[in-house]
């Protein structure tokens, strides 16, 4: 219990976080690079063809990791918002600043790859009967709203907490939105093939799992990178950042 408490306090210290997370960031980046390389080459070149969709199914190796990540990122965002509101922990705000752009990009890639997949599969770029695409679109709206709200409020402290309120409200809403969209798409289900069908043989699934792990590591790497950059920006007037600056300049 005591150990957890110290960890909690340390997590709140920008300097400690900045230094401790450096090896984590490097490690995650390395694992992400290897996993994505292996998973992608394996998936694109060695996994067997789908008997129904041919080679076009291979876009799931991009699409599925992105869509899964988009949701997890929002969950993290909501949790960070909750921590910020309840414990006023500034690090949670830094985490939110770091997650929003990454989550938004990942969601956009998920949507785009879904559309590209839809073209050969359904013969159309956009299919309203696919629950995953529609709820990912809603997720993108939520990310855009958070981004716009932060931009609109000039004082950083207020902007962070306002975004936290919105993220928590969104977090409560997401299961309801997801359920309603899924229910709605089954009501309108016209196509015989659904993208949500996910029973695939192990030779096809293994590279996907590798890529999902890689995507999570990449996400962790990018978020840590953003967080550490944001910390330097916020703490630019403090002694420890000043010392870091002289260190770097001396190194050059």
């Amino acid at each position, binding site marked *: 219990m005591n150990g957890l408490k110290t960890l909690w306090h340390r997590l709140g210290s920008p300097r400690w976080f900045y230094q401790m997370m450096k090896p984590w960031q490097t490690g995650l980046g390395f694992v992400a690079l290897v996993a994505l390389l292996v998973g992608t080459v394996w998936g694109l070149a060695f996994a067997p063809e789908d008997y129904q969709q041919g080679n076009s199914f291979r876009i799931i190796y991009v699409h599925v990791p992105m869509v899964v990540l988009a949701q997890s990122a929002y969950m993290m965002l909501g949790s960070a918002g909750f921590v910020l*509101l309840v414990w006023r922990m500034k690090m949670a705000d830094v985490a939110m600043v770091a997650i929003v752009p990454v989550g938004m990009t990942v969601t956009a890639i998920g949507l785009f790859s879904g559309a590209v997949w839809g073209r050969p599969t359904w013969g159309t770029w956009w299919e309203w009967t696919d629950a995953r695409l529609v709820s990912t679109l809603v997720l993108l709206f939520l990310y855009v709203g958070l981004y716009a709200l932060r931009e609109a409020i000039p004082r950083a402290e207020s902007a962070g907490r306002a975004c936290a309120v919105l993220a928590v409200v969104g977090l409560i809403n997401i299961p309801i939105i997801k359920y309603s969209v899924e229910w709605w798409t089954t009501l309108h289900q016209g196509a015989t093939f659904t993208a949500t069908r996910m029973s695939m043989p192990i030779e096809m699934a293994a590279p996907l799992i590798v890529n999902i792990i890689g995507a999570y590591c990449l996400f962790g790497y990018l978020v840590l990178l953003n967080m550490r950059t944001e910390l330097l920006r916020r703490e630019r007037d403090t002694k420890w950042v000043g010392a870091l600056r002289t260190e770097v300049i001396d190194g050059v």
Partner: protein
Amino acid sequence: MGLVRLQFQREWRLLARARSEALNPLVFLIMTVTLFALALDGQAQALSRYAAGIFWVLVLLSSLLSLDGMFRRDFEDGSLEQILLLAEVPFLPIIGKMLAQWAATGLPVVLMSPLLGTVLQLPPEALGPLAGALLVGTPTVSMLGAVGAALVVGVRRGGALLGLLVLPLYIPVLIFGTAAVNGLAAGTGGVAQIYWLAAMSVLAVTLAPFAVHAALKISLENG
């Protein structure tokens, strides 16, 4: 409860004195319904098929008009900060304010819906379900909208931002609301969707005032 009533009465008095402003969202709804009927050539078949969906979308959009101003006047004249300072439980006057907002905008829409539904060529058997779905669905709209309004109250030109923030959150209301009306009118179900709308309203009425309170505190700190 006294504080809820106190605030409700105050809001009601204010609305009565700024009647044209209070009626704007309803007038907007009536006009856009008319525009839709004209745009679709008044073709009874096409219209009646989509009338429920069109009507729900217009209700959601018109709600933004009233929500935008919901806290702004009190924010600007300084009475909002007094609510948070003086009320022993600021939560209560905030609930009063939100209830008044719903009573002034959601309720008239429910009452007008048979008329407007008819203009949109909804069959008579769909008018009851429409009013019912609106009655249990619009509280969610008011509550979620109030959270958004409280977040942007200090933001210049927050109106456009408000739509961006709350419209995605309205999606379940839109889906269940439309499905309930269509299902009940065609006799193919829809009761479950009414329950969903009611459950969401209960959830929203319980939780939204907390979020509004937090959001207002943040907005005032910014001012």
